[in-house]
């Protein structure tokens, strides 16, 4: 049996959660103040995930970069693969918030969406 201490990253409360595990099985989760915390803890000790926020190259816009994000979390170990894929890519102005810029990023199944609108030059 071992315990892992986590800080939940879901919201700025940052609850300290203690996960007790036996081998690969979760025995208990304590310290969260909401259900999302429990979900986070469960995922974090098995298959940690993260949202990646960055910028992407733009052609023909008033600026040549626009901010974007993975629409949902991606496996933490794939963060740099996701970044590489975004860095190689390029999108075209005009861009609207929410536009899908890459439909499946680095084979995670998760799209990259724009988080800001950008007009054509």
């Amino acid at each position: 049996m071992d315990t892992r201490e986590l800080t939940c990253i879901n919201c700025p409360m940052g609850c300290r959660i203690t996960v007790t595990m036996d081998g690969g099985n979760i025995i208990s989760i304590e310290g969260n103040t909401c259900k999302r915390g429990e979900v986070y803890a469960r995922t974090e000790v098995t298959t940690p995930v993260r949202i990646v926020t960055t910028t992407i190259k733009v052609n023909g816009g008033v600026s040549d970069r626009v901010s974007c994000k993975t629409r949902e979390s991606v496996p933490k170990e794939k963060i740099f693969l996701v970044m590489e894929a975004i860095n190689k890519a390029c999108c075209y102005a005009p861009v609207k918030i929410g536009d899908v810029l890459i439909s499946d990023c680095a084979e995670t199944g998760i799209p990259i969406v724009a988080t800001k609108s950008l007009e054509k030059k």
Partner: protein
Amino acid sequence: MNNSYDIIIIGAGVTGAAIARELSRYECRVLVIEKDEDLCSGTSKANSGIVHAGYDAKPGTLKAKMNIRGNGMMPVLAQELDIPFKQIGSLVVCTDESMRSGIEELYQRGLTNGVPNMKILGREEVIQMEPNISENVVCALFAPNAGIICPFRLNIALAECANQNGVDFVFDSKVLSVEKKGDHFEVTAPDEVYRCSAVINCAGCHSDELHNMVSDRKLHITPRRGDYMLLDRSTKGFVNHVIFPQPTRLGKGILVTPTVHGNTLVGPTAIDTDNKDEAPVTADGLTQVSAGSARNVEGVPLRQVITGFSGLRAHEDSGEFILEEVSDCPGFFDCVGIESPGLTACPAIGEYMASQVSAKLSLTLKKEWNPICHDVKKPFEMSANERNALIKEHPEYGRIICRCETVTEGEIIDAVKRPLGARSLDGVKRRTRAGMGRCQGGFCSPRVMEIISRETGIPLDEVTKNGGNSKILTGRTKDEI
């Protein structure tokens, strides 16, 4: 430009620039060679900005003569060249009754040197003039003709005026050797070899090295470092005059002074070093500055510090200005050891050296010479009507780039595009004050960089802080690493 000149001036600090301006009155080809990327890059950019009254220097010395003459020339020069200058007067403060004779001595020295209108003030008078003065004040030497000036504009304006009147300038050109070849000199820089009849050595901390290339009678410069703290403009009015302690062997001491732009300046230390190329601010220096300031003034608002800086003064072993033709190398003229009161003295040194060199080369005066040089147009120094008329015609004067010092895009464009214009962040800073305010460029520097890039064609990631390898950016995001 062809590489043959009558006169080559080495160094584009205040000394070289002042001499260049004076020589530009004559029919001759003059080149100023500067090792750094811009004017005003050495001692001239990191000093107290004081125009000294002249009681401090030893009577009969060149320091004394040049100080007095320079102080006398400054008001007209400031007008001709658009230099911020205020004759606010100075106080040498005595806080120990047993040191009173030192004040009397300075006063007498001042009389001998020809300093006008000095007075020794009693305790009450000093307190009235300076409410924040030390509670231990005994008396003070008051010299009304001391002043504060913008050293950047002084240097830049002297050079711009010289350039307007035909003097050439070349930058990023460190002089590697000077050789006398019969009746002329060969001055070698990394990219070029120049030829001239006379050389004027204004190379600051390196002026001994240049002198020693041509003379057997060696000179020696010790770079003397001075740390400063610059306080926010909200401290304006904390002191009203330049406040000096009584001087020591090491110099005039740590002063507390208003600056001509409304800040308060505290410093400098006087720390001898052997590094001519780097002037760090040290923890010890900062401690000395705060302790030193507290001796004469109560409650100096050091918490309002916005930046510290440090400069090197060229102290020659003799402790004097060496302003003469080198006896074993005729045609090579020294301006060596230009430490304090070098800033004050520079117009006088210009006059003095120009007269020596023009006599040597039998130069004739030009029929027309323009002493006037206008600074970058500043909308916030104009009347409201003038300002709005300017903005209507040139909308870039309506776009504020540096919020802290209220500097517009129009001013920055002017600073970049004018002859001898800025090509770096520091160059823009010295000409416009953008980046000198309380946020120290945090808000404006990306915008200033964009303007420099746009107006000069330098790619944004090659824009530098002050030339050489001082690039601000290392590349674009999403570059291949």
